[in-house]
């Protein structure tokens, strides 16, 4: 049974703005599904509909087997939600927040306290449990938010941009925790605008742009769709050697137009061909100065599907995003 299933899910706001425009999703139980897209693509609106915070204006959606519109209460019992920019009361302590969350989910006080202590320990906040949230760092707030979302042991966890604005160490900690949760059987629906996050965590990725899913699949399959890996190399002595080098490279794959003085060749079989290429060049007396195997990225997929770079990608940081 799919943990999350939508058919032509749509949300139109006042003024005719279609934030989500016919999204079809099928997320299997136990899967981490990465929902990737730039700001304003429709990620958060989709999550708000799936978590019953917003009524769809079209289509239908089921989460954990229950309809989000007609069985909202049942859906809320089954899901954990950590929304964008951890919504925590700075005047509460971490422990108070977890206890409140336990009460919201109908847990008896003793059971709530027991689970709360365990979760605070799990996310490394035992020492800070009785401090006010206002004194927490961004990473600590995110970890507390995650712990609060888990207090009733949900079968489906929604994480809306869980690492936005975090430093690399905090981001890594969240990723590890999400991986652990998934290994324990929790289905995770993760929205992100970070390619690395989707690539690293997601079993499958859906790319959303302008309210529509433009691509879906495993990260490897999506990248394979848009191109093969290519090798970029520069010679220690370029003068007069480029033609000979290109001849050697052509034995291993399709040469591509050179870029910034580097010779490029598309490889059929990826890393396994790097060693033989270096040997072949050496036998021809061509000394290699630098060599990079470049894999297609999810940003390449995004560009191929939408004509734009995804925010957060290196390319997008170098050039303005259209639209």
């Amino acid at each position, binding site marked *: 049974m799919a943990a999350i299933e939508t058919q032509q899910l749509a949300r139109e706001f006042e003024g005719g703005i279609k934030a989500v425009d016919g999204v079809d999703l099928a997320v299997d139980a136990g899967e981490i599904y990465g929902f990737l897209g730039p700001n304003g693509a429709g990620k958060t609106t989709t999550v708000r509909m799936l*978590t019953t915070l917003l*009524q769809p204006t079209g289509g239908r959606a089921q989460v954990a087997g229950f309809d989000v519109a007609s069985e909202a209460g049942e859906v809320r019992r089954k899901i954990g939600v950590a*929304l964008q920019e951890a919504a925590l*009361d700075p005047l509460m302590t971490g422990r108070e927040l977890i206890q*409140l969350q336990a009460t*919201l989910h109908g847990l008896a006080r003793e059971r709530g306290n027991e689970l709360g202590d365990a979760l605070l320990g799990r996310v490394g906040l035992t020492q800070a449990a009785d401090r006010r949230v206002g004194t927490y760092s961004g990473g600590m707030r995110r970890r507390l938010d995650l712990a609060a979302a888990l207090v009733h042991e949900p079968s489906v966890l929604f994480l809306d941009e869980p690492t936005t604005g975090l430093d690399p160490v905090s981001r890594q900690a969240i990723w590890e925790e999400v991986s652990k949760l998934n290994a324990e059987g929790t289905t995770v629906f993760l929205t992100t605008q970070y390619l690395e996050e989707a690539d690293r965590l997601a079993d499958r990725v859906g790319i959303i742009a302008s309210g529509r899913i433009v691509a879906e699949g495993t990260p490897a399959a999506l990248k394979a769709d848009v191109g093969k890996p290519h090798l970029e190399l520069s010679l220690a002595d370029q003068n007069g050697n480029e033609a000979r080098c290109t001849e050697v490279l052509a034995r291993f794959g399709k040469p591509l137009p050179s870029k910034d003085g580097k010779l490029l060749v598309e490889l059929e079989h990826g890393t396994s061909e790097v060693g033989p290429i270096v040997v072949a060049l050496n036998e021809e007396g061509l000394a290699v100065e630098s060599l990079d195997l470049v894999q297609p990225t999810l940003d390449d997929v995004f560009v191929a599907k939408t004509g734009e770079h995804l925010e957060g990608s290196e390319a997008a940081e170098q050039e303005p995003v259209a639209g």
Partner: protein
Amino acid sequence: MSGRLAANARVVAALGARSVRQTVRRPQLAAPLIIFPTLLLAIQTGGAGGAVDLPEFPDVNGFLDFMLAGAMVQSCLLAGNTGGIALALDIEMGFTDRLFAAPVSRYAVVLGRLAGTTVLGAFTAVWFITIGLIFGASIEEGLLGALWIVVLVASTALAFGSIGAAIALRTNSASVVQGLFPLVFVVLFLSSAFFPANLMLEPAASVAEYNPLSFIVEGLREPIIAGFDGGDELLAVVSVLGVGAFGLWMCALALTGRVRRGV
């Protein structure tokens, strides 16, 4: 009590406790409940005490006795306003989404906030009764009158809190709710809170005569200055119920609209 009702009651209690803690921990929310009305009470009692000698001024032991009810309703109005601000802040920071994503009634979430406002209302009643007694006021109706005052003030805080909550749910903006702060004083001064309606000039006198707040004030004042008056107490209860019913109806409309509008 069914399981679902019991679960919602626990949520109301937990959110009420949070609301009280939040007010205690955020001085800018606590100040309007106690400090402002106490200061105004001190200034007016000290500066306008001679008003009791005016012809047709109600027969009172002292001006403080007359003013206590006004201070209490002022505190209730400000409790309603600050409760609305606190709810709007919760909405702005996304905290209400956390609550609405849980398997509890959305009404329980709002009632939790109002439960906190009610407790704070009861506390302010006790505060002003204590202050009054310390500085020479007396409650003609005795202990029973004092208990009645606490219940009526707490209910009034709940009623005005529901209006603050409805505005917060409709506007999602703490600054809008805060912007209504001056209105509190307009409503107060156009009632018999600080001055007998029969001594006001027109048109203020007519407005004050039919202002529901005047009915509530008189229901609080009578046990202090003269003893229970069935008619005044009934009007006070009806006024509290009317204001509360209007506020809760507005809250229900705002809650229904929120999911539909998606804000």
